[in-house]
């Protein structure tokens, strides 16, 4: 237990250092991008008849930093703000706290990407086992080829295809949005949940179709390697049932995929920029895309911070989880 706590403490220290390093790097990287909306606002105020001092003061009050202030001062203000859990205010949506926008968009992305990951994981793992067990015949070959092909197709191509088919050719699904606010109000009842599901099916399907191939191939490879292990032969010789042998096989083959799955959960917060954009799904991906276009420094910093923190936390959890689900790792530590 003590060693686990030490490990956790080590992970958290390294994680915080990593978050600080990435935050610092992205802070300066973002400011190297050409285009400056704060400067544009400053010049707009001048054009509207304000004096340079008034325009500077007005801009600083709106965005929280002086347009002509040194970058190190902006960085210092940003870090001090972060220490107080203040991500700043949006440049594009004047005066709106970044945290409000990020945490407002985050749940929709979690819904979309998480459901996409889970569906693709379940389908990919299931078909991966079949592909491995039937690897000598046409079923195994077909599944492997289909998995490889879909794994190679970018998600946005699948998104465009689904949009063209199911919102244009056959208008079965809406071309965007999260729910129809004219038909349902947010609440915990079947109509609302059904409407959210109706709006999420296409983007989540695009995500799942684009990523299940990876799970399939990984599971197929993992199952194939476990199939040759001695413990399965021993189980067969001991006369264990086929179902029991399958459980032995599956539990050992799926271990490496759990780590990848846990890390994938961290990437959930990165959103699915192209899919969200194609389906006009207002999650973190679209927020990040729009903030890059608008050079919304604060929003970009906030989004990157969330993605970084999520990936690092997911990595820590994956590490801890692995020792829980694999007794061999637990014994080694």
């Amino acid at each position, binding site marked *: 237990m003590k060693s686990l706590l030490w490990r956790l403490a080590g992970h958290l220290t390294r994680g915080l250092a990593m978050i600080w390093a990435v935050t610092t790097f992205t802070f300066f990287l973002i400011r190297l991008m050409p285009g400056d909306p704060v400067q544009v606002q400053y010049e707009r105020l001048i054009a509207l008849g*304000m004096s340079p001092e008034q325009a500077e*003061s007005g801009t600083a009050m709106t965005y929280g930093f002086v347009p002509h202030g040194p970058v190190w001062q902006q960085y210092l203000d940003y870090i001090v703000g972060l220490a107080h859990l203040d991500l700043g205010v949006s440049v594009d949506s004047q*005066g709106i706290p970044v945290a409000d926008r990020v945490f407002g968009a985050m749940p929709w992305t*979690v819904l979309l990407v998480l459901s996409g990951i889970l569906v693709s994981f379940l389908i990919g793992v299931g078909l991966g086992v079949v592909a491995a067990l039937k690897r000598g015949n046409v079923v195994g070959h077909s599944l492997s080829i289909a998995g490889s092909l879909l794994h190679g197709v970018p998600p946005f191509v699948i998104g465009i295809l689904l949009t063209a088919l199911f919102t244009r050719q056959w208008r079965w699904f809406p071309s965007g949005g999260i729910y129809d606010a004219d038909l349902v109000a947010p609440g*915990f009842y079947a109509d609302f949940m059904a409407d959210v599901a109706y709006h999420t099916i296409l983007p989540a399907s695009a995500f799942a179709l684009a990523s299940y191939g990876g799970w399939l191939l990984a599971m197929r490879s993992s199952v194939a390697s476990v199939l040759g292990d001695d413990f399965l032969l021993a189980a067969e010789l001991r006369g264990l049932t086929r179902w029991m042998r399958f459980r032995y096989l599956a539990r050992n083959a799926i271990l490496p995929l759990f780590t990848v799955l846990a890390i994938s959960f961290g990437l959930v917060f990165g959103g699915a920029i192209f899919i969200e954009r194609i389906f*006009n799904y207002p999650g973190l991906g679209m927020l990040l895309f729009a903030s890059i276009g608008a050079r919304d420094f604060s929003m970009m910093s906030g989004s990157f911070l969330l993605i970084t923190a999520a990936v690092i936390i997911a990595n820590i959890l994956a590490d801890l989880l692995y020792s829980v689900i694999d007794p061999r790792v637990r014994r080694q530590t």
Partner: protein
Amino acid sequence: MKRSVCAIAAALAITLAAGATAGCSPSKPEAKKSGGTFTSIDANHAIDPQAPINPYAGKGNAFSGYNAMPLAFAKNHLTDHNQHFPGIAESWTVSSDGAEVTINIQPKAKWSDGTPVTSEDIKTSAAVAFSQGGSVFAITPGSTGALGEVTIVNEKTIKFTQAPGARNNTFLRSILAMWVLPKSVYGSQLPADFWDKIKAGAGTTDAAKAARDEITALGKKIITFGPQKDVSAGPFVLESLNASEAILTKNPNFFNADKIGPDKVRLRNYTGNEQIWNYLTAGELDTAPYTSTPTNVVEQILKVPGSRKITGLSQVSAALVFNQKYAPFDRVEVRQALAYLIDRSEVQKIGEPDSGKVAEHTSGLIEDAAKQWIGDPEVSKLNPYNVDKAKGEALLTQAGLTKKDGKWMLANGQPFTFKLQVPNGFSDWVAAGKNIASQLTNAGIAVEATTSADYAVYQKEIAEGKYAAGFWLIALGPSTYNAYARLYGGANGWSAFGGKLSHKLAGEGGNWIGGAETANIAGVGTLNPGELTYQLSQMPVDQAKETIIKLAKYTNEQLPGIQMWNYINVQFVNSTRYENFPPDNCECLRLTHGVWMQLGYIQPKKQP
């Protein structure tokens, strides 16, 4: 925020079978009524569910013409920027010197909570406008034509008076554009001595500066302020909101409620033109605002049952503008030569075939406005720069260039070559830029059309003088001051501050066009175009003709840019659910579709 949390909690449950959360409303909105739900896009900004219901917030959920009302809506008039459709103001009168505007409020105007809209509300609205600054609400010592006094005449009449000093001929327009806000909501945000601070802030002392700083701080507070519940004097009230759409319901207290057809309005979120086109091709919109749409997309949209176009006047022109810091663009002969060598008709057909019309003359105004302002005889005197290779080559030779092996060489022996910059994502400019590059390369001038990463980069780098030539929107009417300020304002070195005009040298203070401060124009004499433009902001509209003639001639001869095409306002409507859309060329086309409804347009389709 609470709504969002509830929505997400419920939504996650679909996938994860999570437990119930408390506090989520289980009720459904009321069933639709006969007027139906009208679906469109608000062109002004995307939907931001975190933004307040405040028209001054950048992405505030107050939508012009729906639940946000100004005193009046500016018409898309060809020449008179003081023409308006009534809003909360039923009528208005202007004193002979333009310094006093008296507003008569709609007698039946009420807020959605049932209380009447009064002069007190308008005065509060003016105070809020002052806190945001700009136009006639600038609190800068010596600023031109700022608002001085606000006087309540009676409950439904209010008077606005310009501060002493130089006149501003956009005074009426600026006053009428002011958002009308309820005193019951915004009054508490203003200090009791607000108007004293405004007076104190107009001075030059330290105390005046302190007063201005207080007002600026107040502006920040107000920009993030919004009522929990919408209080609207418009035809609709905000009912609900999520990250992908806003739903507004009809306001029964609206003074003109009988004219409003739809029961509800759905405004959908968008992040770019592609999303609007997606909605249109999926048949999900009843109307859409203007977007520059490629021909293949236009064809797809028009294939949707019930879909058609409405076209009208657009007071915008696309021009190829030169940075005269880059030789040989400092030579007027070279700029004129390019005008003769480029076939603008071909450029327009390739760049903007559906919503553009080739510019017949470069005058700084769109063609129809130029004809209206200065008359056909004067317009016919302008050089149309019809394609004429011989004239173009003669002018290049006159500027000291020589032709060698089919290529034009500068006086220093280097080949005449330049990059024509366009922003990525502007499909019309990109196509036009490539065509111009191709035409000029064929004429012996090696031109490469290059794209900036996006419009933000383009704006920054063009202002920094990094491009030799690029596309630029000009002729922004109907105010001729606005139109000419695009060519002879900050981008070309002229700026007015505290009632005084000054000129910066090329490459300094945002002067990227870098034209001469004065030039001698044949038959007119030496002109300072920045000074003439500034005069346009102050002189009465009916006295502006002579100044506009001078500026048109200056622009036509000096060619800071070559007008390629004048835009046409093309909007798509779908008559499957609604009918009685505005006719082509309606002066309301540039206004939101909420204003169309106030004018009696957009009625539910009668079932046969």
